[in-house]
């Protein structure tokens, strides 16, 4: 099978992806970020920017997801009633959000800012990581963060359940990846 042909075919199908329809009422911001935004940006980088449609899709989705961060403390809704947001309804970040869903947005949002030159995406996730940083040594297991975070009141220290597995793993995975994010090229393209 010629995978180049498949890639081109998949690119052609991007036009059919319509972010104005949705099979869900509540959008999982983390899942949407890692699968879609990550997918577009990875393919854009791997093809060395040859396909602008990939970046267009990433920007289109980035603009949508950015609205999930429109809360009093600018922490994102993780399970997002995006239709309410479309109508301009006020949102408040959840008092219980999974650590992976909050802490695994950095890679995609940082890269989107790097490519587009628009700092707002990096700003949105750096605000989150600053809180991770500030409270890291105050958790019940200092150094690690618990599974449930109160993103409404910015209390990351209350929960007593810790894991490196599901619900947390991708957050720890993203930390070193983002740290080396200015070396993207060597990271992905050998």
């Amino acid at each position: 099978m010629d995978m180049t042909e498949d890639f081109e075919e998949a690119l052609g199908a991007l036009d059919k992806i319509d972010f104005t329809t949705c099979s869900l009422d509540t959008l999982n911001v983390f899942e949407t970020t890692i699968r879609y935004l990550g997918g577009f940006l990875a393919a854009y980088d791997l093809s060395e920017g040859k396909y602008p449609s990939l970046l267009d899709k990433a920007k289109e989705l980035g603009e949508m997801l950015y609205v999930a961060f429109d809360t009093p403390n600018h922490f994102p809704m993780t399970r997002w009633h995006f239709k309410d947001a479309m109508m301009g309804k006020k949102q408040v970040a959840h008092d219980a959000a999974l650590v992976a869903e909050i802490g695994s947005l950095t890679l995609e949002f940082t890269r989107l800012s790097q490519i587009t030159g628009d700092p707002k995406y990096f700003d949105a996730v750096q605000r989150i990581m600053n809180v991770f940083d500030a409270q890291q040594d105050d958790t019940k297991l200092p150094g690690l963060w618990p599974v449930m975070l109160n993103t409404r009141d910015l209390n990351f220290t209350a929960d007593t359940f810790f894991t490196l597995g599901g619900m947390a793993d991708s957050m720890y995975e993203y930390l070193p990846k983002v740290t080396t994010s200015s070396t993207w090229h060597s990271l992905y393209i050998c």
Partner: protein
Amino acid sequence: MDIRTSRAIVSFVHCFPSSLCFYSNSDQLGADDLIMLRPRSLPIVLLVLLLVTLVYYRNSFYTNRDASAISWQEPPPDYKVPAGFDWPKVKANYPVTSHIPLPSSPAQAIPRIQHTSTPPTGDVAVLRKHRLNTVKAEFVHAWSGYKKHAWLQDEVAPLSGGVHNPFGGWAATLVDSLGRPLHTCSYSPVSLITTKIHF
């Protein structure tokens, strides 16, 4: 008790050799099964009950916290955004007044933790080539199934050939896999990443 728990019990019980069999040969455990118990089975019964309890509570614990659990609800009907709607034009209720800038200094190097491998030779090279081809074949198989049964849907259901749309119905598999052909198989502008991975 949910279906996962029931299945876990059934598969656990199936692990026992037939000499220890204390349940009927049906796929479901029921009240009848308990009638067949003999006294010497008591320690086993207690063990099973303990395991059942553990499995049950583990499952309910994860169900409450599982990130993907919500995604698997039956999706509501499609929703159409009003014509002319544009996300960048949504007025912020809590405008961001200043942005934290991207770091301008180069990233700090982090210590290498990976083993330094050398290209394999002889039988090892053959074995690794075989493994590499197996991975490629699996990718092609999965991709073909998606194309045939679930093109532009989020996921193919691999046994039924049906589809799932737990991620908004925006072709999640397609988008998530966009970069994969580029580094799973040869694609001219990009070096073959797989040639650098030694299994």
